[in-house]
């Protein structure tokens, strides 16, 4: 057990040193301004954020929960050091201030660090729908939580699961140990299909690798590791027109 804990700590720590990071802001669209906001943000992104050396932005519309219809805009960076600089020029900022700012108000801003070792992105995976599960685990439940994630990732790979899953932990702006696990799907029909046979195959593989009923036992332990309000599901839709390519 101690060995596992040590490995997990090292894995999380070492991977975070050079990990990809996303600064996610919630943008609350003002009443009746959706069309102008959408047009402004799409044009700005296409004009200023499509080249490789520009800042990279990814935009998602929120489909469920209290912020439904608003947006999460993520500045995606290869390391946290990029937050020290901003390649946006005066023209880009001016364009944003003139064509987007009048139509929204700022919500929360958080920094999320991607854990590459616990994420799974198979070749040719696709889909713009995200089913995002937010977890907040107790300090005492850290190992149960991460063991389950580590094993799920392994079972996905071994079972040939065809959709992507990204695991990010909140490195700033949260209270508690918040983690988001993002499942990619080809729309709601794709989600429906992913949670059929592929999920069953993944669970079977999990039990094959870690022992009979291991999936149920580990998922129960992971659930028990959460705080009382430490479980939330949201659906998001990736908006390609409003995002860097």
């Amino acid at each position, binding site marked *: 057990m101690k060995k596992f804990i040590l490995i997990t700590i090292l894995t999380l720590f070492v991977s975070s040193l050079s990990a990809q990071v996303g600064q996610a802001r919630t943008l609350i669209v003002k009443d009746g301004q959706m069309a102008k906001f959408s047009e402004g943000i799409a044009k700005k992104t296409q004009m200023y954020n499509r080249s490789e050396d520009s800042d990279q932005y990814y935009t998602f519309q929120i489909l469920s929960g209290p912020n*439904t219809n608003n947006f999460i805009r993520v500045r995606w960076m290869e390391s946290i050091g990029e937050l020290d600089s901003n390649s946006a020029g005066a023209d880009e900022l001016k364009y944003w201030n003139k064509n987007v700012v009048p139509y929204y108000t700022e919500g929360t801003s958080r920094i999320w660090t991607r854990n590459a070792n616990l994420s799974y992105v198979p070749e040719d995976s696709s889909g713009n729908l995200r089913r995002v599960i937010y977890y907040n685990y107790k300090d005492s439940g850290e190992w149960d939580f991460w063991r389950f994630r580590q094993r799920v990732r392994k079972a996905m790979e071994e079972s040939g699961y065809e959709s992507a899953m990204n695991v990010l932990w909140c490195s700033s702006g949260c209270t508690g140990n918040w983690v988001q696990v993002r499942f990619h799907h080809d*729309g709601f029909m794709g*989600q429906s299909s992913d949670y059929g046979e592929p999920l069953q195959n993944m669970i079977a593989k999990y039990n094959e690798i870690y022992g009979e009923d291991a999936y149920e036992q580990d998922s129960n332990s992971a*659930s028990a590791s959460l705080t*009382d*309000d430490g*479980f939330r*599901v949201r659906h998001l839709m990736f908006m390609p027109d409003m995002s860097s390519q």
Partner: protein
Amino acid sequence: MKQILILLLSLSFSFSYSQLSTRTIEVKSGQMEKFIEMAGKKTKKYNNEEGSARFWTYEILTGSDAGKIWRMRAASSEYMDNWDSNSEESQYWMKNVGPYIKNGSVNGNYMWNYVGEMSHNVDSENQNHVMALIYTYKASGEQDFWRFRERVVAARKAMDTAPKGSMHSVLCSSGCNGNVAIILFEYESFSDQQRYNQEMLPKMIEKYNELFGNDAYEQDGEKVDKALVENGRGRMHLRFIPEASSD
């Protein structure tokens, strides 16, 4: 009990059935009748045919959202993927119903799975008064919470005289904080609900104890109390509006 967990997992991950979703709508002051009339026209025109989304409309009678509309939709994954704000149906809503909605007051979208095994459907007639019990349970309390619901269903089904209204269980699959379930009880009116509580509820409890052992109802109920998060129990009343709902 393991079976219950497996059932819930399979429901949570089963999206092939119709997905329920709910929104809260604030109607402009003095425009409720007009809203209901126009929402009804839209619903009867676009939401009664096979393959279309189905809508059920309620007025919220109590709580912080009292006076607002709670509109529930059942739609297939295909419908949800192909939803288009420029479709004839959407445009009709925006043109004819939109003017009666307070600006920007369509709040939140919450997705729900209907938990059929934990529901009791009867041929309800004129049961338009609804009491909704809203629970948030701890992950560790899942089994205790649903055991009680499963047993209530069994007891209701075993009663000599069936309740006149149905009992529906839905579990939040997206948009909620925590494990949120709503149990909807149908009655004719507040007095009918009171009558049920005085006459039928004791019979249901008796049947529950007969099926599951002496004092089982009380013991299981106490376990439910412990399964909930702090302040994890809410209640609101709704008025079902058939004229603004799918048939």
